[in-house]
């Protein structure tokens, strides 16, 4: 488990197969996460949500996909064509790349429930999600139009500010677990899930995760009311769809990280080990996804200066103090 990859999973066709399955699963999850969001938000707003296409609206994602694919792909005259066209792919590829290292269940003998069990998994995830910011920033910049530019400037400022607090909140967990391997972190939570000793870190992570994925109430980057659509104002058709997919996959990613780092990953609730680990993992991720939708339909968008104040003057100091306290505790207790 501490090697770069376990022997079984390093067979090339095995890796390819895992990649293919993962891609399929993640895309399908995205499609139905979107439908779930529209349904749940509808219910919370006393509407039934989409229910016309297929039984209970279940074919809605397919129809939406067809619509997005058939729409015209516009490039504004003032845009930088190469970067403008490239940006959605930066977002999407980095969003997908994260899933290479996420373990979905307990590693069996000679096999892992991940494409690769990298011993610095969490660092790779943080690196990848940081690169993903470039998709949004460059997309808004290259559009050559004022609202996307404002959106991209906001995204740079917001994501940089909140990434600091996010990193700080994760380091507490890493200190407690003593490893950066995701499998190792989950295994060290067998007795006690980290959201109890690291409750402050957990709260900070959940808040910053919402900001990092540009979701309401921190969706300043898109801010439909003030910036039309923010960074994606000029995008249409499939390129808009790619940004859309990337946003939801990022939601899924941060939910997975929260599950792995704070909620004990595939560890069973109340000793119910009859239920396979993968089910526990998915249930926990689903809980976070629901929380996302819940937050979005409850809170209005926060004002920009308050977002910054909150990030720099509240989250960052608290995260730093939490980190120092955790480090001191571990140093004293040995």
């Amino acid at each position, binding site marked *: 488990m501490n090697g770069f990859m376990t022997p079984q999973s390093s067979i090339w066709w095995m890796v390819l197969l895992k990649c293919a399955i993962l891609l399929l699963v993640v895309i399908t999850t995205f499609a139905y996460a979107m439908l779930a969001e529209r349904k749940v938000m509808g219910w*919370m*707003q*006393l*509407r039934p949500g989409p229910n016309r296409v297929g039984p209970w609206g279940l074919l809605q994602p397919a129809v939406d996909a067809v619509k997005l694919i058939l729409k015209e792909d516009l490039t504004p005259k003032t845009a930088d064509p190469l970067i403008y066209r490239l940006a959605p792919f930066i977002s999407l590829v980095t969003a997908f790349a994260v899933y290479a290292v996420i373990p979905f269940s307990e590693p069996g003998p000679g096999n892992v429930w991940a494409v690769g069990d990298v011993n610095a998994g969490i660092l790779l995830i943080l690196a990848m999600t940081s690169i993903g910011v470039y998709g949004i920033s460059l997309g808004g910049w290259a559009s050559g139009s004022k609202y996307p530019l404002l959106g991209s400037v906001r995204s740079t400022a917001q994501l940089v500010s909140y990434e600091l607090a996010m990193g700080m909140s994760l380091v507490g967990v890493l200190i407690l677990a003593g490893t950066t391997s995701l499998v190792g972190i989950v295994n060290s939570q067998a007795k006690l899930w980290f959201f109890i000793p690291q409750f402050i870190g957990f709260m900070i992570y959940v808040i910053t995760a919402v900001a990092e994925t540009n979701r309401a109430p921190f969706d300043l980057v898109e801010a439909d009311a003030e910036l039309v659509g923010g960074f994606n104002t000029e995008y249409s058709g499939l390129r808009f769809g790619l940004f859309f997919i990337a946003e939801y996959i990022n939601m899924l990613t941060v939910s997975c990280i929260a599950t792995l780092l704070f909620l004990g990953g595939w560890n069973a609730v109340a000793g119910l080990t009859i239920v396979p680990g993968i089910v526990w993992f998915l249930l926990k991720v689903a809980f976070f996804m629901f929380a996302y939708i819940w*937050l979005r339909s*409850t809170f209005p968008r926060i004002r920009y200066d308050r977002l910054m104040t*909150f990030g720099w003057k509240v989250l960052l100091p608290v995260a730093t103090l939490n980190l120092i306290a955790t480090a001191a505790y571990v140093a004293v207790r040995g």
Partner: protein
Amino acid sequence: MSRKNLYNVGALLAGLGVTFKFMFKRKPTIQYPSRKKKHAPRFHGLHELRRYGDGKERCIGCELCSSVCPANAITVIGAENSPADRRSPGERYAARYEIDELRCIFCGMCEEACPTDAIVLTPRFEMSDYRRGSFIYSKDRLLVPPEAGTGLAPDDRPNGIPSDLGRVAEIKSTVDTGEGYDATWRGTILKTQTKGLAE
């Protein structure tokens, strides 16, 4: 005080509680094309031109509806009845009767002005179409077919004005709101419009 609001965690949790509770509430949505709301009897919708029990048209071509119409939506061109072919009991009948439903504001003044209760507003409301010209309803679509029934004229009611005024329009129109009605009804001729004088 604004700062207090921003970090008021209790209020944030209360808000989450409200949305969570609303998730399970009954949704007031009416699934429109498959289910239709029952309108009030006096709902002002699409017009119809009624007939007498013997099949004769009520309209006598007096053009009062046309002159009272605040939106100038009604065009009436009257003609003399010939003894060989009596279209209405009076001297004249409407040779041409057209309502531009896009101009119409559905105020019901035509209904009030009509001395013979020929023009009435029904609760039908589904009139959407693809061309503007299709919204000019002429007699072929306004005049009810003889078999559609006549409704009741206010004159026929005992003791003059009834106490339940709410049922007046229901009685006047051939549409029975109690029994339900086809909201897309357009007379016997559907989606076709013949220009010029209705024969």
